[in-house]
């Protein structure tokens, strides 16, 4: 809570200091309402605050962790309540499936000066979103513990397992590994990472037919279970927040964690001194002898609603462009994320995400039915993680649950 308030304070401080600079005729003038919905973390706050600087009409922002539950509903009406949704590569799919966002080609041509080509999210030849930051999960470890155990930073998950065993056997830590393995979205995300690391394909090519019940799927599950043996026994209730808390308390030596969470782990105000001093970022790990890192690349970006007037769309585009204006990348905004904006300089908290991109990690799939598989994974592999059934049964359950859902949504007959 306090942390969130601090973030709010920091984010609003940025807005306050930035306001005088951009309000004095620097071009951000809008003539129609702007209403933003998006996730709640510091980088998103910074962008929304940049949009709010614009003068001439009202700019509202509703930033909440529950944004995915409200964005489709809030953009389906005509006129839509939200004129812009801030989304990521997984969540743009729901907006595309429901046909609530508009192509941005005209607006990019008119007002998009300074956007780099790789910021433009193009679907079927049309620009549908403007990306502003990248994210990925990667290794983070405690250099002091690894040194005491006499091991080096793992390059593969197999090395991570071996290292965990040494740390535990030497009595340095009871549960040396951490991970966001909470049943549901988080656990499914870890499966997705590990399956991609094994070189797996989620669907039969060109169709919505799932195919994960294979040797790679089994190997993926076996690896997740082997890792969980070195985690706090409550791991199925630990999301990124709880895992970060365990890390800050000094209970964990190695974990695979989101790049956007690194800042707080290394922040002396939020974490214990030894942990802050010894928290070290590593590259994403590979698994099973593969060369593709077992992680996924993510982008965050903004969209413009379809069911609004052209004037509102234009105002929204201008305001959001101001949110990601390169001139706003000051000392406070720079370390909040791996920005895709011109002029970004990576800091010590960003090297992991940069490494993921360098190692050619695969972006999280932008498929209309990937979300259904993600949900099925999150609930059906839990029995396996608890040792109640074998890997093949769990994977068969996932396929059956996905197939039922995909039939309902009209992806399969």
């Amino acid at each position, binding site marked *: 809570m306090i942390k969130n308030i601090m973030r709010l304070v920091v984010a609003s401080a940025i807005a306050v200091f930035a306001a005088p600079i951009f309000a004095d005729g620097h071009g951000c003038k809008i003539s129609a309402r702007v209403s933003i919905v998006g996730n709640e973390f510091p980088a998103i706050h910074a962008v929304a605050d940049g949009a709010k600087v614009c003068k001439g009409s009202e700019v509202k922002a509703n930033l909440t962790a529950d944004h995915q539950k409200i964005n489709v509903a809030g953009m389906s009406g005509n006129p839509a309540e939200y004129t812009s949704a801030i989304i990521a590569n997984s969540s743009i799919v729901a907006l595309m499936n429901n046909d609530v966002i508009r192509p941005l080609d005209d607006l990019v041509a008119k007002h998009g000066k300074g956007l780099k080509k790789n910021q433009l999210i193009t679907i079927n030849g049309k620009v549908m979103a403007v*990306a502003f930051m990248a994210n990925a999960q990667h290794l983070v470890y405690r250099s002091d513990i690894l040194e005491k155990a006499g091991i080096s930073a793992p390059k593969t998950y197999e090395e991570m397992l071996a290292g965990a065993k040494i740390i535990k056997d030497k009595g340095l830590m009871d549960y040396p590994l951490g991970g966001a393995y909470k049943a549901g979205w988080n656990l499914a995300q870890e499966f997705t990472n590990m399956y991609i690391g094994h070189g797996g394909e989620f669907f039969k090519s060109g169709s919505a037919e799932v195919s994960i019940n294979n040797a790679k799927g089994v190997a993926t599950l076996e690896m997740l279970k082997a890792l969980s043996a070195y985690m706090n026994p409550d791991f199925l*209730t630990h999301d990124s927040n709880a895992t970060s808390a365990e890390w800050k308390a000094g209970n964990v030596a190695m974990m695979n964690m989101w790049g956007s969470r690194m800042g707080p782990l290394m922040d002396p105000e939020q974490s214990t001194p030894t942990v802050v001093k010894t928290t070290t970022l590593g590259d994403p790990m590979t698994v099973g002898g593969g060369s593709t890192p077992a992680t996924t690349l993510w982008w965050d970006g903004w969209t413009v609603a379809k069911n609004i007037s052209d004037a509102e769309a234009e105002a929204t585009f201008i305001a959001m462009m101001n949110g990601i204006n390169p001139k706003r990348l000051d000392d406070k905004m720079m370390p909040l994320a791996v920005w895709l904006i011109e002029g970004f300089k990576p800091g010590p908290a960003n090297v992991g995400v940069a490494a993921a991109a360098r190692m050619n990690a695969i*972006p999280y799939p932008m498929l209309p039915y990937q979300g259904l598989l993600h*949900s099925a994974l999150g609930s059906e592999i839990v029995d396996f993680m608890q040792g109640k059934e074998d890997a093949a*049964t769990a994977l068969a359950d996932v396929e059956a649950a996905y197939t039922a859902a995909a039939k309902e949504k009209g992806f399969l007959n």
Partner: protein
Amino acid sequence: MKHKTFFWFFLPTASAMLLFIALPIFSIVIQSLFTPHDAVIIVTENCDPFGCKQETTIDQEATRDLRKSEPLGKFVGLEIYKDRGHLAVNEVKEIWIESNNFTEFKKNIGNLPFYRAMAFTLTFTFTVTPLMLVFGFIIALAVNSLHHNLKGLTIFFSLLPMIVSPLIGSLVLFWMIDSRGIIGEALQYVFEDPDLSLKASTGLTWVMLIVYGVWHAAPFSFVVFYAGLQTLPMDTIESAKIDGASRLQQVWYVVIPHLMPLITFVALMQLMDNFRVFEPIVGFSAEAHAQSLSWFIFNDLGGETRLLSSAATSSVLTIIGVSILLFPVLIRTWRDFNEKSAK
């Protein structure tokens, strides 16, 4: 009462019931019979910060007309009821044929989400309801025999678990029973097992949810029974005393029969409430071990890809479940009512 008077008296209630109960139920029944239209899928070239590649997307142009002409979607009848996420008719048949004995059948059925959820929901309902009735009654008797000056304060504290909103209450307990929390650590110390974790074992999670359920609901039955105790006929109690009835006999033969209508009422409310168990599952992050129909509805509505037909179907199944649960109690009330009016 004249029929006309009755009609005008009942009209506001009837229209409210129609608007807020009958229409929504009608709406979810309709929604559970339809699914979205078949998606027209095309392969397109998509580009993002990490490069361009061929990917599958939905062809919006092609589905737009279909959606406009039939906005309800595709009629599928009872297909959703029968699919794996709900009653799983085909899967149950297969398991029945393939299983060699009942234990195996039970184990395999537990692998299907609906039956797994029912197993927990029914266990929860049928342990929490009697336990909260018993505890509520005992607390009511105890408070009733307290000295006059102490009663107010005791009642206030006894009601606290009900006043705390369920989500907050379960979150507070969630952190206390964490393996690094105060109750979690205490249990590890008592049982001399440093790896003991309430959240990692299905059995212990169920126990934890049931204990929470009783803790949260007992004040409700307490306050109802306590009110009932104030109407206890003192002359009946006194004559029982004169006849030599012990304290236990007085409770058994006088107090409980007097409170019976209230016990039925509380049981009815609690059966309904407990069948819809939801907040503790979210608060305790217990979805890995315990699920309920209400949790399924929440999950269907909250995902990146919303399953609206599935959520509607689960809602209809919840209503059917509640009706089945309440049926014996309703029959009983109906019979009592008829007996009374016959006299």
